[in-house]
């Protein structure tokens, strides 16, 4: 998965348009990011990347860059 696909998946989870997430945002800046989207992120990464993310690390993530770090091994460019 590319970084831009990853950002578009984040946008989809928070119900924003593709391209609206640039990777620089803090999660607190994303209006739709809440406890349900955290769960959605787990589900979507499980589905697209077959990646079991640690919920503890996910809850500790502060920014979109931190989310990217959680799936870094599956990001190809």
């Amino acid at each position, binding site marked *: 998965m590319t970084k831009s696909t990853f950002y578009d998946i984040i946008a989809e989870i928070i*119900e924003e348009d593709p391209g609206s997430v640039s990777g620089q945002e803090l999660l607190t800046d994303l209006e*739709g990011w*809440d*406890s*349900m989207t*955290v*769960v*959605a992120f*787990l*589900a979507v990464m*499980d*589905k697209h990347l077959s990646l*079991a*993310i640690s*919920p*503890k690390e*996910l*809850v500790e993530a502060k920014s979109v860059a931190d989310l990217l770090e959680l799936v870094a091994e599956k990001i190809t460019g």
Partner: protein
Amino acid sequence: MAKLCAIEYYLPERIETNDDLAREFPEWRMDKIGKKTGIYQRHCAAADECASDLAVYAAEKLFLSGVCKPEEVDYVLFCTQTPDYILPTTACLIQHRLGLRKSAGALDFNLGCSGYIYGLSLAKGLIESGQCRNVLLLTADTYTKLIKPDDRSVRCLFGDGGAASWITADGQGLEIGSFVFGTDGSGADNLIAHGGGFRRSTDFTQSCELSMNGPEIFKFALDTVPRCVRDLLDQEGVAQDSIDLFVPHQANAYMLEYLCAKMGIEPDRFLVNMHNCGNTVSASIPIALRQSGRFIGSSRSIPEKIIPIGFGVGYSWAACFLS
């Protein structure tokens, strides 16, 4: 052979809608929340209404339906995590209130979202070992009493409810087949109410609030439910495609729809039915099954092979085969 012959349920009168929550938490997008959780309202027990009351009302509906009589009950099993008292056993109070025979057995067991399946297992064991013929399985909880008023993310999920199931050695019904069980106490902290027990303190004025780590619970369900179902199918030697209806514990629609897709089951064979009552813990499976109209007594075609799956607090899980 133990058979599940009838189910009735009761939901408390007071309803809390998502609009009610939106008024309380104006900054929260409740329209989106309803769409994601699949829950638009929850029933909440009154201050003086306990899980045992909900169970008793459900049992009375069962008796009124004519399917069974109080004097026929040989054994009452009551699954709850919100009992009337530390002691006595709430099932003893229920025996008296329902006017069951004094020769009937009665016990409580403490399980949450997996409780219904364990109740079916206990009932089957009692019947097929010849200890009794008719078991009244009651599953009820009032989790809303454990939730902190400002914990909106949990409040929008859990509702109160009670169900009564009639399991007998004879009669028309779904035969209770084999079971798969599972337990992992390492997940205990992720869904817990510390107060009211003896580990933390014997000061019973302490908080009894529910604490839930949603992402951990979600991951537990994603890991556990597909494996549990696969193990049961292998054990029964049946193909997933031959199952008419899967009835998962009604946690939230988002989780269930995701599980359904992950397991490759068509949505019409995977029951999601909690829009009007939320997650009612151990009562959720019988309520969903009864509400769906896809059970005995319905005009719709009745599924021949059903797999109910319970999973949650503990962690505890189980599934069984009904046919």
